[in-house]
């Protein structure tokens, strides 16, 4: 049962939620809310933004300032909100399709700007909402309704993408590690700049049914059996790492945050006098 102070953050009248029972996204919502509560955030000063997808329906359930935008574009909206009011804490929740397909451009540019937003990428390796089509993170060979013979498009590694594009905090956990999820989201929120927390989520309904992970428990077991912490992964060979999910904090570095740079620009030109 969620703690009472976590329950305060929910629009309880909309429960039961629209996610399939056992969908991984609920675990992530709970982790985000615990992270926000433990970080001492206020609902009036917190924005939850999203695009379109099952994952992106999350803001509707959270009783803060919430904005459910267009598919893939949420980071561009969030960038406008953050630039307008840097005092706001912004968590942008995205599906893997939302983030890396249609929203890929906004994602890399948010990383590049290092703007103070925490992106939580809910990666279930599939387009859940639209019925199980392949996404840019669908593993090679996995089946999807638009990859009936197995995917031949090489997948993205969300964390490497974020690191390469300049995010200052990048971490990955799976829904089988809810405490780690919460910890990484908390660290992401504490980071001044742009944070990316990729959480490997499950869609037993659309991904599982085509890839031998039919039940929520199948998925949790899969994640438990195939996750490798970063420290261990560093001593493993690429062959041994094949098909494994490496979890941990990949990037933690200091760099000027975008709205702070903007503020100093305004001061430099004597703005607001």
């Amino acid at each position, binding site marked *: 049962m969620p703690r009472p102070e976590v329950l305060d953050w929910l629009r309880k009248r*909309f429960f039961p939620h629209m996610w399939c029972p056992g969908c991984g996204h609920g675990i992530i919502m709970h982790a985000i809310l615990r992270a926000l509560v433990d970080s001492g955030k206020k*609902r*009036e*000063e917190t*924005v939850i933004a999203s695009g379109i997808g099952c994952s992106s329906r999350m*803001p*509707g359930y959270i*009783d*803060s*300032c*919430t*904005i*459910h*935008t*267009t598919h893939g*574009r949420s980071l*561009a*909206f*969030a*960038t*406008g*909100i*953050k*630039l*307008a*009011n840097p*005092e*706001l804490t912004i968590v942008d929740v995205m599906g893997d399709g939302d983030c890396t397909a249609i929203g890929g*451009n*906004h994602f890399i*540019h948010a990383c590049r700007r290092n703007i103070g937003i925490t992106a939580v990428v809910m990666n279930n390796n599939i387009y859940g909402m639209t019925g199980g089509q392949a996404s840019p993170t669908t593993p090679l060979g996995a089946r999807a309704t638009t990859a009936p013979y197995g995917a031949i498009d090489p997948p993205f590694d969300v964390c490497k993408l974020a690191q390469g594009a300049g995010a200052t905090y990048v971490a990955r956990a799976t829904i089988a590690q809810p405490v780690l999820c919460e910890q990484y989201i908390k660290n992401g929120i504490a980071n001044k700049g742009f944070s990316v927390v990729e959480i490997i989520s499950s869609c037993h309904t659309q991904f599982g049914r085509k890839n031998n992970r039919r039940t929520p428990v199948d998925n949790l077991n899969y994640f438990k059996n195939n996750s490798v912490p970063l420290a261990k992964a560093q001593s493993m060979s690429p062959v041994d790492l094949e098909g494994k999910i490496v979890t941990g904090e990949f990037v933690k570095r200091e760099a000027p945050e975008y709205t702070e740079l*903007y503020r100093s*620009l*305004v001061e430099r*030109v*004597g*703005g*607001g006098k």
Partner: protein
Amino acid sequence: MTRVEFWQGNVSVAYGAIAAGCRFFGGYPITPSSEIAEVMAEELPVYNGRFIQMEDEIAGIAATIGGAVAGYKSMTATSGPGFSLKQENLGLAYMAEIPIVVVDVMRGGPSTGLPTSIAQQDVMQARWGTHGDHATIAYAPSSVQECYEVTIKAFNMAERFRQPVLIMSDEVLGHMREKVIVPDNETLTIVDRKRPSCSPEEFIPYRPDPEDNLPPMASFGDGYRWHITGLTHNEWGFPTNCPEEIAKKTARLMDKVNAYRDEIVEYETENVEDADVIVVAYGSVARTALSAVRQARDKGLKVGYFRPVTLWPFPDRELESLAEKAGRLIVPELNFGQMVHEIERAVHGKAAMVQMSLVNGELFQPSEILEKIEEVAR
């Protein structure tokens, strides 16, 4: 104190926006609109406003909507290809009722078309470009002075009606330099969005006030918690499948402009009282048309001039009664016929229509319109 400037149309739009209280601009460079972004980049930080160059036009309007949600008067500016890219998020702003101003400095299309040449091919896109029904407010200025004035009006309308307002400028106007008499800020009428007067607990973000049928708007960060979505929603802002709630919302998106149509519609006329031919033109073409009409008058022809300043809502009733008296309309446009259809609709067959189309990247010559007037007036 009023002052006199010698500005390009694009520069005039930018300073008009600043005078209107615009303090947020998100955009992406595109000819022939880029000067608007450039002036905003230079000026907004000085006003402690926010300027951001985004990664594309989709992001430009998204950031602009974000700025508006956080309380700023916000604008983006673009041209043809960028206007196409902005359409989906423009729809979100209509649906979520977020006030923004979008400038389209029209160039030739389709596609990349003619980046540095004038056209008027986006005027129907302004009305119908995003999917789904909504009411449109779109201005078509025809002088650099008017660029300044309609930009202020566009912000006032956006703030008042909680919706996007479009400024349909064009390449010639955007780059032409003219004298602008800049009024003293103190003399301007500036409208700010209606804020909720109730407590955060009582706030219902899409419930219109009974006296004006318009809902107030809170900002993220000012103590109110609310939900914004592009899904069709009820008065509380949450998605709905209830036919009554859907009907109420979608009808209100139309009604909020239709009900105030008379306060929004603007047009200009000259010599229409006794005219038996009226030239109807907008934007830069209206300048050519007016000069042709005056030359025709000098030749003793009874010709009038009608210029819609708001393309949407269109001054249909006003044109209808004049058209009925005159019996003949000439409609020159830099497209193969767009507003002419709206004009046809407006006059209900009470006047003969003569369409003039030019799609070669140039403006009409006054002599071409004059010739047509002489031909039709005969």
